[in-house]
């Protein structure tokens, strides 16, 4: 019975993650193409995707290295882009923290924007889910996102410059994120958080190393928490 429920959570995860397949694959291919053009071997390109497994940070590091920036600058910029992962980890801990260590290691490895956001929304919407069901759901979401990321990288690196990357493709990623934001704005506090984060992110967009993202994120979280506190007071 418990297994059956876990299986249904797993499949619901696969279904939830499915649309992101169409974002992950083109982006992974683009990374493969760009890495190959920058002179990386297939092994180096694949190692990049397997070891780092974070699209935005990979693009940042690769483009800076390609522009002959010092390795340390490429590294720090890419880490700054990934600082948001700390907040994802913190946000999922109340839901998944009690899992055994090896499962938490596995979750951490596959923690990317889409697996995080889909899981958070699901766990909020279904508070009755058990720990096993939550873990199964996360793995389900991961399936159409992470393995395609690796395969797409490989295909892009293999096909190299043969692929013509359409110019509108850059916008698939923002659209995918925006699509997740709309349904997530369930309460006034959520809407306040999103609005404040946009204002701060734009106002601090001039900060180096993408720190405007962190400023916007923290401001939004503080605003959301404050709005919730006032409403419940």
């Amino acid at each position, binding site marked *: 019975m418990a297994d059956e429920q876990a299986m249904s959570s797993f499949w619901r995860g696969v279904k939830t993650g499915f*649309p992101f397949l*169409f974002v992950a694959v083109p982006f992974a291919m683009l990374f493969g193409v760009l890495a190959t053009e920058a*002179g990386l071997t297939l092994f*180096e390109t694949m*190692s990049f995707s397997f*070891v*780092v497994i974070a699209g935005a940070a990979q693009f940042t*590091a690769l483009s800076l*290295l390609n522009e002959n920036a010092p*390795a340390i600058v490429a*590294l720090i910029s*890419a880490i700054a882009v*990934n600082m*948001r*992962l*700390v*907040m*994802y*980890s*913190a*946000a*999922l*801990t*109340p839901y998944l*923290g*009690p899992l055994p260590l090896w499962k*938490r*290691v596995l*979750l*951490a490895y596959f923690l990317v924007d889409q697996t995080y956001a889909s899981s*958070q929304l699901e766990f909020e919407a279904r508070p009755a889910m058990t720990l096993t069901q939550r873990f199964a759901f996360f793995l389900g979401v991961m399936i159409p996102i992470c393995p395609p990321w690796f395969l797409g990288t490989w295909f892009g690196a293999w096909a190299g410059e043969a692929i013509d990357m359409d*110019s*509108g493709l*850059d*916008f698939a990623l*923002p*659209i995918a994120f*925006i*699509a*997740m934001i*709309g*349904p*997530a*704005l369930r309460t006034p506090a*959520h809407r306040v*958080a999103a609005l404040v*984060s946009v204002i*701060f*992110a*734009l106002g601090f967009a001039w900060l180096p190393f993408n720190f*405007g*993202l962190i400023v*916007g*994120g*923290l401001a*939004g*979280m*503080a605003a*959301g*928490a404050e709005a919730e506190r006032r409403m419940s007071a």
Partner: protein
Amino acid sequence: MIDKTELWFVIIVLGVCSFALRFLFLGLVGDRTLPDWALRHLRYTAVSILPALVAPLVIWPAATEGQTDPVRLLAAFAAFAVGYWGKSVIGAMLAGAVVMLGGALLGL
């Protein structure tokens, strides 16, 4: 040409650091309960980080070298509107994609 030593330095250190960032709370906090104020902030992580990530990309797209582009603005609005009022992630993605494709077909 990218120096291979530098490349491997970046791949490995970036990989280790990214994992550490992802593991920080899941691994170290685990099943200890976080204080209420922390949980209250964490509830708004997704609706704060994602908009902060997307807003500059919508207003100043890299593909147009930072020039605000009406087609991208409209695509972003369509995706948001369908997601917000229609509550469907897939519907919202399709709405944004349709606007982008429409713009490309019209040569905008």
